[in-house]
């Protein structure tokens, strides 16, 4: 009927309906990262099944021993199996990392979109508040806030998220400022779409990549920030444990034969952070249908 059939071949049997998964699966590092995160999370949250020993199973006479077949990661100064302790501590670290990342990304994205899309004085007010949060050194705020509010891990999450949203808000605002000038926003407008609809249907899908990266970066930074806090003594307190406060308790062993007490929680943090970043990378690429490989 018309000669356009030749204009572009229809990609044959490619499952274009599942493009997102297909694109993600092609990203090897992301797949590896996802596997690591899932295994790690499984081991931590099901530590009562997976861990070789019971939590807080102390053998004071044993003391700190180096890794052996019986204790794969050795034992700590109280004679507890270190692998077991790391798995249990991971619950808190992962929970804090993930919930802070998601919470701060959501808050940051919402505020960034408002600032970018509404523009004018609303945008200015939001961005000045963001600046205010950015110029205050986060550690100081955290330390003071945790002293004043108590240190339940919910409070830690809220406080960390209260600081983490600022960067993503700025990034999202910048993106929105560029996106709202695109012709398809005008096109949606003349199709009769409301502003809410434009934001939800046209802007957010374009922001998904940025948000994914933000989540992964925030997982990493908040696990590290929590570790720093715990290390300084403002974070999680024994008997609750996180990777951060394991590090802080082991800090005295730097340069002694028991240095492994420091390495293993540190390694757990490192692996988690790396794996999550790879996942974030993969997500960003998968959210962009134009990316080819």
């Amino acid at each position: 009927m018309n000669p356009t059939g030749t204009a572009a071949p229809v990609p044959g049997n490619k499952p274009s309906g599942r493009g997102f998964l297909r694109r993600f699966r092609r990203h090897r590092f992301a797949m590896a990262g996802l596997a690591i995160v899932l295994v790690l999370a499984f081991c931590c949250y099901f530590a009562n099944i997976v861990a070789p020993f019971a939590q807080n199973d102390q053998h004071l006479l044993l003391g700190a021993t180096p890794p052996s077949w019986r204790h794969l990661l050795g034992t700590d100064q109280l004679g507890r199996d270190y692998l077991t302790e790391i798995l249990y501590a991971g619950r808190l670290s992962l929970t804090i990392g993930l919930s802070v990342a998601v919470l701060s990304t959501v808050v940051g994205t919402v505020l960034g979109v408002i600032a970018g899309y509404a523009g004018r004085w609303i945008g200015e007010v939001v961005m000045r508040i963001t600046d205010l949060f950015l110029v205050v050194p986060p550690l100081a705020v955290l330390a003071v806030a945790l002293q004043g509010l108590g240190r339940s891990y919910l409070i830690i999450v809220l406080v960390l998220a209260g600081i983490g949203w600022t960067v993503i808000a700025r990034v999202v605002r910048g993106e929105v400022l560029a996106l709202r000038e695109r012709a398809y926003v005008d096109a949606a407008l003349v199709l009769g779409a409301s502003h809410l609809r434009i934001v939800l249907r046209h802007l957010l899908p374009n922001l998904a990549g940025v948000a994914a990266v933000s989540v992964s970066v925030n997982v990493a930074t908040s696990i590290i920030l929590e570790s720093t806090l715990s290390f300084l003594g403002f974070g999680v307190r024994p008997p609750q444990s996180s990777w951060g406060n394991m590090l802080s308790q082991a800090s005295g062993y730097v340069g002694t034969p028991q240095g492994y007490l420091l390495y293993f929680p540190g390694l757990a943090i490192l692996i988690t952070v790396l794996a999550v970043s790879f996942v974030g990378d993969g997500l960003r690429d998968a959210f962009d249908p134009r990316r080819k490989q």
Partner: protein
Amino acid sequence: MTAQNPPLLMVEDLSIAFGTEEGTARAVEQVSLRVESGQVVGLVGESGSGKSVVSAAILGLLPNTARVTGSVRFQGTELLGRTESQLRELRGNEIAVVFQDALSALNPVLKVGDQLAEAIRVHDRSLTKKQLHERVVELLDLVGISAPEQRAGLYPHEFSGGMRQRVLIAMGIANEPRLLIADEPTTALDVTVQAQILEVLERIRDRTSTSILLITHDLGVLAGLADRVVVMYAGSKVEDGPVEPIFYRTAHPYTRGLLASLPRVDRRTDRTSRLYRIPGQLPNPHSRPEGCVFHPRCPHAQAARCDRERPQPSVVGDGHVAACLRIEEIG
């Protein structure tokens, strides 16, 4: 439809000015035009003649800084001064637009079918998923996209330029609007694809009751498609009439210049002869000439007359008007 019914679109004495640092830019001055039901009206002019500003005014898309006077009536009701939410009812539903740049007017991260479905859902939420999909496929088919079923699942970057333009047209007619404003729909395309797109517009004209306001700088595009042609120059309407007299009994010197500057295969040119061009340039909107806006470039301009008096549209034929002081003398 009886004669008493108001025209579908009636623009009267529309003037649009923008305050800028260099003073007031008068983008459009006293332009009137009408589109009757089922008609295709072409709006022609050079870049900068104000034709896109007119379409933005019809849609209520002008920035707040624009000063607008006159009236734009759609089916008898005034559009100027309407609120955003009142306009939203109309946009896409009664009046739709096809944009010029098809690549940037489509959202790169949404599948073509989903974008089309979105255009429908904005105004009609009653359709089921299946009905919606069927409608999308039907629309893609109507604008001449082969294998619409599969192509609905592709992203814009997987489409060629002509196909993207077809998708935009499909979005425009998704809700069977009364009026479709096509703003230079063929400009970014090469000539063969251009012809196909025009064919699609023709099909819409023949198969639906949608009227089309076709904005273009290419008179050739209008010859086979338009019922009426409105010619704009430097923000003013210079000629307006049915398509035949515009082409064969051209009244205004500017329109004549435009026609003469079209390359034609049936007119022999040797190496020495050149394509005609209208001398001079479009005047700056901050300082339009006194009198007739075209007089500095007009071969028929008369001193002490064309540079003083503002020509008013005068009837030169059946439904054919031209704004030229010397229309009698040069005709």
